[in-house]
């Protein structure tokens, strides 16, 4: 699936985004380097997908304006509103999930369904400080061979994003967002790798307990970067949820062997 690169402006930021597919809109916030994936291709088969580069990440300039994740989420909501007037499914991964969570709380009228992949806002866990971008890349995966299959981000981007994350409090428990999870009324899926060392094992249940319509999906044998460790499993869960929301728990696949 060919994604077209485009640009928009919101809150004074020039924001790149990539668009493909037709159908109901899906807005995605992805970590740098995880954007070109089978998940994006699979979603674009059925939906109009907009993958946004959040200010201060990837190839965008250093972001010194956003003062909190909520602040960045407000910018993201304006950006999304400028590219689609319809309600959309919002999907965020890792840091992008933190932004998506805040955006759904701040702009609930825009979000039809929320998909959080490896969210870190609730009960994050300290991982050893990485020496460099390559070192940071390795701890994202359950298996080294999966890490080796994907190139890590450049040291410049790593330094820039690390500084933004530190300043916005990424990786620190967000008590305010936890207190407001009950305000999220759209169907919500939170997906975690079973070997994700960036969050505690207790984190998933908090989403389930506090968001009124929330399902939890645990991906076996995966670390934080599920798209790297178990891409087919992630695609299966996310695409099913985007289509069926909370009814994705119903079996839709046929078990027929021979008619």
């Amino acid at each position, binding site marked *: 699936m060919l994604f077209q690169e485009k640009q928009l402006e919101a809150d004074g930021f020039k924001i790149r985004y990539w668009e493909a597919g037709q159908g109901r809109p899906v807005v995605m916030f992805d970590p740098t380097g995880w954007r070109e994936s089978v998940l994006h291709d699979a979603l674009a088969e059925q939906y109009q997908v907009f993958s946004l580069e959040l200010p201060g990440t990837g190839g965008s300039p250093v972001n010194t304006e956003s003062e909190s994740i909520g602040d960045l989420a407000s910018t993201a909501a304006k950006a999304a509103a400028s590219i689609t007037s319809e309600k959309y499914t919002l999907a965020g991964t890792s840091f992008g999930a933190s932004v998506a969570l805040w955006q759904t709380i701040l702009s609930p009228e825009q979000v039809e369904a929320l998909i959080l992949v490896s969210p870190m806002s609730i009960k994050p866990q300290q991982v050893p400080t990485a020496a460099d971008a390559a070192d940071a890349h390795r701890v994202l995966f359950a298996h080294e061979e999966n890490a080796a299959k994907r190139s890590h981000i450049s040291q410049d981007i790593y330094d820039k994003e690390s500084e933004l994350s530190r300043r916005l409090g990424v990786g620190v428990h967000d008590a305010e967002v936890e207190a407001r999870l009950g305000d999220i009324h759209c169907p919500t899926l939170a997906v975690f790798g079973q070997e994700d060392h960036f969050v505690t094992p207790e984190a998933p249940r908090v989403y389930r307990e506090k968001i009124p319509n929330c399902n939890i999906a645990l991906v076996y044998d995966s670390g934080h970067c599920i798209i790297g460790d178990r891409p087919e499993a992630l695609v299966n869960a996310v695409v099913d949820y985007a289509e069926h929301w909370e009814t994705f728990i*119903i079996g*839709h696949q046929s078990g027929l062997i021979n008619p």
Partner: protein
Amino acid sequence: MKASMFAGMGYSQRATFPSIWPVSPVHADPETSVQSYREGMDECELAEEMGFDWLSFSEHHYSGRIATGTPSVMASAVAERCKKIKIALLGHLLPLNNPVRVAEELALLDNLSNGRLVAGFLRGTPNEDQVYTVNPAEGRGRLLEGMDLILKALTEPEPFSWEGRYYQFRTVAVWPRLVQQPLPQVVVGTRSDDTVRYAAEHRLGLGVSFLPVGETAKITDKYRLWCEEAGWTPGPDDIVYRGSIYVAETDKLANEWFESLTQSRPGPNIPMRRTVSEAIQAARTGNTFDLRGVVAGSPEGDVVGNSLGINFLGGPDTVASQIKEFHDRCGVGVIDMPFQQNKVDHKAVMKEIELFGKEVIPQIREFE
């Protein structure tokens, strides 16, 4: 007429559960749970002592209201404590299970109980389809094929392979063989024409649950007609009715109990999120479901299926007369009752079992 107690083995604090399925395991305290199963087995022992003919167990998942996700494990434990009463698995949910495994469990239980097994096959309530992610549209096909495979696996003395629509096994040779030859009594729990017809054509019993007497009679009339067409007449034990019950010393006391229920009144349906419930029903009936046409609400506000009603309610004479209606109009020969209701504790259940045994069973024995 015979009496059966449906041993739900419910968690004793079930009245505190939220009105939604599944019930989060966080509500289960292990100590209370252990005590609840002990109390449930005490109820089974008392039922045997009071003259009940069967104890029944049913597969239900993800809730402490009926806390027997693996009914054959529960039935095995009870079979060891209760030495004479029939052990009725009513039953396994066939679309969810490996039919060969079910056959093996039934055969083992018939051996452990020394030939006291009654086997039952069910499709299950709509929520159960989600437990092992079975496509609801294929539940009926799985049930029909599963029954065929189990009956073959239990009766075929030589290894065979099975090339089914939903199941493929290249070698089946179930051990141990049944104590009851060629088969124990088998009951098909259903309301659907195709499975009622299956039961009639295979000379199996029929189980109907929780419907009013008029609705039940329509089903049993068809069953008896199709049995005649298949060349046989069902015996008294072949038509089983499962209905909820609350029996007290007097009608007044029973009615007062019922009126005291302000919410979560006992009923046959399982409360689920409305979108999920409607999507399953649509899949089961081959219809489409517009998910985005349904506005999601709060978990509580979104729930359906919390119906009112109880099948048998009153003093002993009243309950006996209500049961007689099912006997006379539907040909029911075995009445299967869950005494554990939502707000009836263990002590009260024991009292009901004793009351039923002493004052109702002698009356229903006379129904011929």
